[in-house]
């Protein structure tokens, strides 16, 4: 198994995540796409970890931390989305442009 395979795969996931973030109108789906991007990063880290097989397993530890932080982010994200939903009865983020110019 070559390292490049994993990197290409993670690049694909990352790009699809970006597409998802830019295209989706509903905030929750945007969060989904963000999770996708973070998953891609995890693949990268584990792949590089394995490639170097460094003693401190830096890659995998980093991946773990990314997972935990992602979980925290999702928590925060959903809290904010709920807040917006309660005030505007809709979670579409392209209607949110009161603050501009």
């Amino acid at each position, binding site marked *: 198994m070559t390292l490049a395979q994993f990197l290409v795969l993670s690049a694909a996931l990352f790009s699809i995540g*970006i597409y998802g*973030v*830019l295209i989706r109108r509903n905030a929750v789906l*945007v969060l989904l796409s963000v999770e996708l991007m973070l998953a891609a990063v995890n693949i990268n880290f584990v792949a590089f970890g394995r490639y170097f097989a460094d003693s401190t397993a830096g890659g995998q530890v980093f991946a773990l931390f990314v997972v935990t932080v992602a979980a925290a982010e999702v928590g925060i994200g959903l809290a904010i989305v709920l807040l917006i939903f309660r005030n505007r009865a809709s979670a579409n*983020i*392209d209607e*949110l*442009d*009161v*603050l*501009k*110019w």
Partner: protein
Amino acid sequence: MVTAVLIRGTSVLAAAGEEAAHSDGGVLASGAWLIVLVPFLATLAITLFGKRLPRHGAELAVGAVAFVGLYGTVLLLATWFGDGIVYEGGVTIGEFGGFEIEWAWVVDGLSIMMFFVVGVVSTACFVYAVGYMEGDVRPTAFFASFTLFAGAMLMLVSAANLIQLLIGWELVGVSSYLLIGHYWEQKENSSAGMKAFIVNKIADVGLVIGIIIAGITVGTFTISTIMEKVVASDAALDDVAVVIAVLLFIGAMGKSAQFPFHVWLPDAMAGPTPVSALMHAATMVTAGVYLTARMFPLFEEMAHEVLTLVLIIGTITLVIAGLLAIVQDDIKRVLAYSTLSQLGYMVAALGAGAYTAGLFHLFTHAFFKSLLFLGAGSVIHAVHSNNMSDMGGLKDDMKWTYRTFLIGSLALAGIPLFAGFFSKDEILAAFNEGGYPVVFLLGVATAFITALYMTRAVALTFFGKYKGDGHPHESPAVMVYPMLGLAGGAVLAGFLNVPGITEAFYKLVSTRVVSSELLGEHATSFDFLALGLGLTAGVLGIVVGYRLYMEDAATQRERDRLRIPVLWPVLENKYYIDDLYMNGIVNPIKGPIARFVNWTNSYIIDFIVNVVGAFTRGLGRFVYSGLDQRGIDLAINEAGAGTGFLGSRLRYIQTGKVQQYAAALFGGAIVLVIGFWISIT
């Protein structure tokens, strides 16, 4: 008790004079700075306390000038009886780079003569002014600026270095502005003052640059050092000498109202008559002549060609001024143009190398011209109008004014026994000997014209019937006595330099450096040809004048009116068939030519000056609103507004849609990366 003081005073003065005559000036010369300082202190005193003094500060003014007159006379006598004083003193007041700037005064023949002239004539005019300015709206201001003028003139003539000369020069200019514009309620008077100042200032540009070049090439501004360099024919000075001479002469032309710069003098008559008498007859206008005289060695030794220029300018001025004088109706303008003409004589004399003759004429002219002005002043004072058409027949009402005015006119016309004869004759002699035939002839012709317009003036003012309203009466004593004094001067002044008998005048014009052979040129004996021609021209002028104006003076006004329409020559012939040849020659010259010259003068030269004024104002408007407001300022405002506009446009990239921000985030990252890759590979 007063007599005791007087005796005591004279004995002290005599002793000082005696001592000054022999030693090199002694205490008198070293104290000469008093001459300059006293008038200035008087000016300050008048401005500060004048209002509270009983006679509005006139006392201070007359006192100061009288002191200068007395001091000048003592110095004159000391030089006359001694062998000439040459003294220089000074105190340093500042240094700029290598140049020492000092307040310095020189006491030598030339300056003593000027002290005397300025002192005496000023005293006369000041005393006269006390009477003339009775009931004036602001006498204190008048006497303050009048004393300032006297002080400035004295500083100018006593200046030992070119900078102090320039300072005196400009102060004289400013005081003439103040005095001409004395009645500044009417706009024309203040414009006349302004015109005088600006024209002088334009000419002063030449003077300033001349002084700068001289100062730098010689290394110092002290005139005596410059003259030593001239005598030693210093090489550096030699190649700039012509430029300096021309520039200095330009300055002189401005002040002495020579040909192109003469436009301001006739308008200067707007000022009160004592002013015209002192400044625009005797002192201020002679400043230019004095400067040329003071720097004469430079002209003579190094810049000879410039002398011919001086001659030409002098001659032009003397001729056209004479012609203009004939046609004037305002008596003061007649005298103004007459002054211009006489100045032309002095300048031409200097131009012809006749140093002593020119200055002698200056000396005598000061007396009789100021006398004529005072006379005209007392007539105007009585008749309350300047124009001769409102005068006439004042012979018997104003006896003393008539007598003194007559003496003045005769002196001016150059009739023997009167001052004008001797000085003008010497100039004509100089023209003749100097080998300038054309100038000599023009000089004689102008002598004739001078006699003509003076007789016309006398006739129209004193003979015939009184044409104005009201009843003229003789001027008060305080005005008459100065006129009498000046009349005495007008008579006696001539005898100071009668060729062959009294040649002591050269002592009055010698300066430290002016070499003796220059002085020696004065005529040891009469040049009979010049004498003869000059005399006949003068007498002829009076006769013609008498014939034309005096005879039936009563009908004079109608005839004058008749003369004005274009048909004038035809009418004239019918009346005087027998004088055809003379009238045929003289009157056509007098009438159309004079009127043509007058027309050119007022419609071309004056016109140019006004146009230049208007043009600069227009240019100013263009520069200000065009270049400044709509040019640079607009550019800067546009820059400001532009950035603001840019800001307002850029504001709208903040659309408020978060996904567009995300797009910018990713887009930015990708562009950055691709950009760098391109730059690396």
